[in-house]
C-alpha cells in the first residue's frame, strides 16, 4: 500500500485502562518521552471495558489504527479483566484479519504504571506502522455497494 498522500496524518485511538496503562501514559508524559500527537488516549476503567464495538466504531468513523493497553496479565487491578479482554481482542483481531483488514491496524499492548518508556516506545512503533499502512480505506467501506 503506497502512501500517496504526503500530508497523511493518521487518526489513532488508544484505549488505556485507568490503573496501569493510563498511568504509564502519564509517566511517559512526566518523563517527557515523546510520541506522535496522532495518538489520542481514551481512559477506561479496565481493558475489559473495551467493547469490540468501540473499536469497530472508531474505524467506521475514520480511525486509521486502534490500540488497546491494559495491565500485564496477572496484574489486572480487577484481577481478571485483562484476561477476558485478551480473548475478546484476539478473536476480534482475527476476524478483522479474516475479512481482509490489515492486522497492523489493531494492537494490544500490556503497559504497567511503571512503564512510561514502554508506553512511548509502543506508541512510536504503532504510529510508524500505521504510517506504513497508510489511510484506512477498507474498514470504513466494508459494505459499499459494488
Amino acid at each position, binding site marked *: 500500500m503506497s502512501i500517496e498522500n504526503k500530508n497523511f496524518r493518521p487518526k489513532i485511538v488508544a484505549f488505556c485502562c485507568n490503573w496501569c496503562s493510563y498511568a504509564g501514559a502519564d509517566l511517559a508524559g512526566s518523563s517527557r518521552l515523546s510520541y506522535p500527537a496522532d495518538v489520542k488516549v481514551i481512559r477506561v476503567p479496565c481493558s475489559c471495558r473495551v467493547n*469490540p*464495538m468501540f473499536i*469497530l*466504531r472508531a474505524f*467506521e468513523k475514520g480511525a486509521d489504527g486502534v490500540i488497546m493497553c491494559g495491565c500485564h*496479565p*496477572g496484574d489486572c487491578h480487577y484481577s*481478571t479483566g485483562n*484476561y*477476558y479482554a*485478551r*480473548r*475478546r*481482542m*484476539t*478473536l*476480534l*483481531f*482475527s*476476524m*478483522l*484479519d*479474516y*475479512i*481482509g*483488514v*490489515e*492486522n*497492523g491496524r*489493531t*494492537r*494490544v499492548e500490556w503497559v504497567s504504571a511503571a512503564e512510561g518508556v514502554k508506553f512511548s516506545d509502543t506508541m512510536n512503533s504503532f504510529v510508524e506502522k500505521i504510517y506504513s499502512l497508510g489511510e484506512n480505506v*477498507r474498514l*470504513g*467501506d*466494508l*459494505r*459499499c*455497494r*459494488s
Partner: protein
Amino acid sequence: MQELINRAKELLNDGTVARVLGWKAGDLPYNPEPAFFESAESLKDFVYNGFCGANLSKYMIEASKLEGKTLVCLKPCDTYSFNQLIKEHRVDREKAYIIGVGCKGKLDIEKIRNQGVKGIESIEGAEIGDGADELKIQTIYGEKTVAYADAMLERCHVCKGKEHKIYDEEIFESKETKDGERFDEVSRIEKMSPAEKFAFFQKELSKCIRCNACRNVCPACSCRKCVFDSNKFDSSQKANVDSFEEKMFHIIRAFHVAGRCTDCGECSRVCPQGIPLHLFNRKFIKDIDELYGEYQAGDDTDSKAPLTNYTFEDAEPSIVGKRG
C-alpha cells in the same frame, strides 16, 4: 412420519404435553414452516421431511412461558441449540418434552434450483422413512431426478453427528451425511491475501439487504431487544445506509454469538440473498478451538464458555499477525 404423529397424539391425549411444536406443510412442497399444534385433530397438517430444516429450539423460549409442557421435535443438530439455551436460562427444560427426531440430511431448494430444476409441483424421496438416495421431482416440464446428497444444505455435509444431545425419547434412524470438513472453507479464505479476502467479503456482504432474517432465526440471537434496535450504543437502525451497524452488522452479530453459536447453520439457510453467513461464526469457532481448546457450544449445559473463561497462558492478540 405417521409414527411421530401418532406418538404426538398419544402425548397430547394423555395430558403429558399441552401442545406440539413441529412443522406444518406450506403452500409449496418445499417450504414447510414451524408451527404449534394445540390439538390431536390439528396434527393432520404436521409434516416432517427433508425440507424441515428449521431449528425449533428458539421457539421454546416463548413456549417456556406457556402453561404445560410443549412437545418439541428436535433434530440432532437442534439439540445443541436447546442445550445452549438451557445454559443461558432462556428455556425451561421442565417445560419441554423433547422428541429427538432422526435426520438424513436437510435439503436446500436453492441447490435443487441451481441444477436447473424449475416449476416444481411435487417432490418424492424427501420423507424421513424413504431412505431414498434420489429425489424424484415432478415439474411442469416433466420429471427430474436429483441425488439427495447434491441437494443437501451445506451444513449437512459437515454434520456434527447423529447423536441427540438432549431428549426424552428418540424416533427415526438418522443417516450419516458428513462428507466434508467443517473448517475447509474457512481455511481456504484464511489463506487468501488481504485484498482477496476483502474482495470476497465485500462481494458477499454487499448483497445484504438487512432483512434481519439471520438474526431472527438465530437461536443465539435471542435477546429481548437486539443492540441494533437499542439506542444504547447509538447503533439503532437509522435510514442512513452508511450508518455504523450497516457495515459492521454481521461482524458484530458474529461476535455477539461467539462462543455461543452452535453452528446450526440457520443464518445461511434463511438468508434470501444466499450470503454464507456461517463463515463468520465458523471462523470464531475455529479460532476458539485452535487457541483455547476444542469447544462445541451446546455440547452440555454447564461448561464455561470460551469468552467467559481464560487461562494465564492464553495467546496474545499479536498471534493473529504471527499465524500469517
